[in-house]
């Protein structure tokens, strides 16, 4: 699987995403933000960081960069795109995903492990449909603005169309306010676009890519994408 990892000035998870891709046997390459074309990837990752310093609203400037035009085209034509942390913020700003990520309700940065309940009904998405375990994923967060907000009408629509991918929960999969690290609506940690090929998530699966570090639950997402791709290509 060829993976294009988009790098903006201020991106810092690009190296970790490269690492995670190598861990699962994918073939990653980096694309600098000034490039017009992303090549011919099977998947695009927009990694975490502080693109352009995030001095304006997080992700607000990145949407206008050269490279994003091709990313948007790739996504619209059904290409698999995942935005992690700052990448999620950029996908929202680029209107590939609905909603917005505002400051954590604590008004503080949060870096810690979280448990993510996988939404059973969203499993038609390539990111989820081959996840082999039946329990929440343990994946760390690291953000100051991960508080997902969306209006009630859109939230209803997200639920109805099975587009909430992950919710913050405890290790048993119970979703409650107490397990919400940032105040996001309905404990939302990640959402899908309408056709399920674009995923935005605040937690960092690329950090859960090694038993030595924070476990390997993040790899389950990449393995799922690779499996669905193999099925598709058959």
């Amino acid at each position: 699987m060829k993976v294009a990892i988009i790098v903006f000035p201020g991106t810092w998870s690009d190296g970790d995403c490269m690492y995670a891709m190598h861990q699962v046997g994918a073939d990653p390459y980096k694309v600098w933000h000034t490039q017009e074309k992303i090549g011919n990837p099977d998947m695009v990752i927009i990694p975490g960081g502080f693109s352009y310093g995030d001095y304006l609203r997080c992700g607000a400037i990145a949407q206008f960069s050269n490279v994003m035009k091709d990313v948007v085209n790739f996504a619209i034509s059904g290409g698999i795109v995942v935005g992690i942390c700052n990448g999620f913020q950029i996908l929202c700003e680029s209107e590939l995903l609905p909603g917005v990520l505002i400051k954590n309700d604590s008004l503080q940065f949060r870096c810690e492990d979280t448990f993510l309940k996988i939404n059973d009904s969203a499993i038609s998405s390539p990111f989820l449909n081959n996840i082999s375990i039946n329990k929440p994923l343990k994946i760390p967060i690291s953000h100051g603005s991960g508080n997902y907000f969306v209006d009630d009408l859109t939230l209803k629509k997200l639920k109805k169309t099975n587009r909430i991918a992950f919710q913050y929960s405890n290790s048993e999969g119970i979703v409650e306010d107490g397990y919400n690290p940032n105040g996001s609506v309905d404990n939302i940690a990640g959402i899908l676009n309408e056709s399920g090929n674009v995923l935005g998530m605040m937690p960092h699966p690329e950090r859960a890519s090694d038993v030595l570090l924070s476990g390997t639950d993040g790899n389950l997402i990449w393995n799922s994408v690779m499996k669905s791709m193999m099925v598709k290509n058959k």
Partner: protein
Amino acid sequence: MIDKNELDKIAMSKEEYDLVLERLGREPTHVELGMFSALWSEHCGYKHTRPLFSFFPTEAKHVLTKAGAENAGAIDLGDDDVAVFKVESHNHPSAVEPYEGAATGVGGILRDIFAMGMRPIALLDSLRFGNLKDSRTQYLFNGVVSGISGYGNCIGVPTVGGEIFFDNSYTGNPLVNVMCVGVGKKKDLVSATASGKGNLLILVGADTGRDGIHGATFASVDLSVDSVNDRPAVQVGNPFLEKLLMEACVELAQNHQDWIIGIQDLGAAGLTSSILEAAERGGCGVEINTSAVPQREIEMNPYEIMLSESQERMLIITKKEHQNDVINHFKHWELDATIIGKVIDGEEVIVRHENEIVARTNINFITNAPTYKLNFNNDLKEYDYYNPNLEKINDIKDANQELLEMLSLPNICNKKSVFRQYDHQVLNNTIIKPGYGAAVIRIPNSNKALAITTDCNSRKVTMNPYTGSEIAVAEAARNLVAVGAKPLALSDCLNFGNPDKSTVAFQLSNAVQGISSAATILGIPVVSGNASLYNDTITGSIAPTPVIGMIGIIEGLDDILNRKIEQQQHLFIVGSQLNQKFDSLAGSEYYYNKTKSIAGNLEIDLVFEKKLQNFILDAFSKKMIKNSQDISDGGLMVALAEMCINYSIGFSGNNISDAQRIDSLLFGETESRFLISVPEEKVQEIIEFAKSTNIPYEDVGTFVNDSEDPSISFGPINLKLSKIKESYNSGL
């Protein structure tokens, strides 16, 4: 002739001014005087500390840099891997503007590391504040933590550890010491040097503004009520720009080292110190044109340009034939790169502004700051804080209550509420997260890891600066050994009060000698460091705080995941018997909490300490032990409670009916002790190993995991783990 008022403003004495006159043989120009005063500030010139540095053991086979010769110390890790590291202070800026002060402290130490061509992989913060009940302290504390979080998280270098300590002496003068560790390949190490006539000085990064002018001087005088008016002397950070600068410099070192002579960061005293230090290292002259320096503000004069401490700037000493290559390289990273001067023959610095020479003098005249002898009476018995007699206090009645209280003290309790504000995982190397003693960070693309720590118990240094500083070094080493790492080298950050006071002079001199003594006996060279003096406010001097930053190596990570505490494992205390006398409360957190005073005699046998540390390392490599914890602040019971909390496990202690004093048994802080967790099948083996190496030991009990909420019982203690966790988590 200049008047005294003018000299006071730049913190230069009349005698120093006379020395300038003598060296120059004439009156200095305005710009020259600014350059002299900045480099002759304590912060840059080490006027009171330089004579002490000769005590430090600085050499070892694995040390690649000469002491003080580069921006940070470099250590050979084998297999061509190198680590560079340093601790530095940003105390005074943080006292008046905590957010930016702490943020630019982080930015400054990062530049020291990547100027050497190495990639920063870990940051640690050693923080000291006054009493948290005080509202100004809360403001400083929150500001400093936010500043560290704001800068470190944005730039994408993990903050993996450090300490937070509260003591009244730091009220109004918090300490913000930051340590950075970088790694890379030996061939990519870059020196901060200039040489070769005609080679170019290229300034990259931020434009130069009026921020931080005389910041080095500001760092070298006592803080006063008016210090808040010095906020303009505090710089403002831009971590985004520094991220670009970091990537560009690391890539330059790795891929294009043939284009450059050296890289020197701009920190305290800005362009002045940067250019002069690089030229001095290379033994050359330099000529610079301040009009060429890109400026953020209008009508800046050469004095301001030479002394500005604007952040996120770097000087690249470039081979003249590669000037376009270097400029284009930085352009790719969207950074300005401007030729501002060149290397010339001779030993002079020539500063031009709009074609007029505004400064011209021998470089050594400026870089060679005068030094001062510390004046004090070197008799411990005459020392202000000498108090060998512990006040008798009643022994503990309710041990459970005492333990819960200890665990909730700000100096003992869980610091998670702070550490979770720092990104401690980015770069995918963090094996042991903050809050568990030493951080353990994998060396990228290897099967090795670095263990990193900072430590200093300033109460013990206050009691006895020499022994207390020996203890600081030993304790830092113990933190590393407890995670199975062999200590390699240390960096010191000497935070003291005004050295013109004889008490402070006594503390400073003895602390340096204590550090040197411990470093020599434990075989841990001092490879870099920093001094921050004049930490005085109207209420007096801070507690003497020689912060020790230390790195060690773990070879082979295959076993590291097995180092868990599990039920049925035996807990041994090694280094001493379980029972402790009342004396062991000397300098302890328990005694301080009871009496609000410090007293007693501190003792450490460093030869034994070394033997004990080797014992632990050997026991790890022979796989006799699964886990270990050194006994430090809060004594045995706090160490044991932390082990149980970290591994969510209970404990059942053996009988201790013959205990003389419960307080000393539980909370005494006798040095040179570890707790080790031993699997049942290794118990005989560890006993024999301890006997054969003459290490005192005692079987303390076993870990148990018999319920959801197991009990911790030991002597008079019997508490549920949940209760212990609740107290531990309630302090901050």
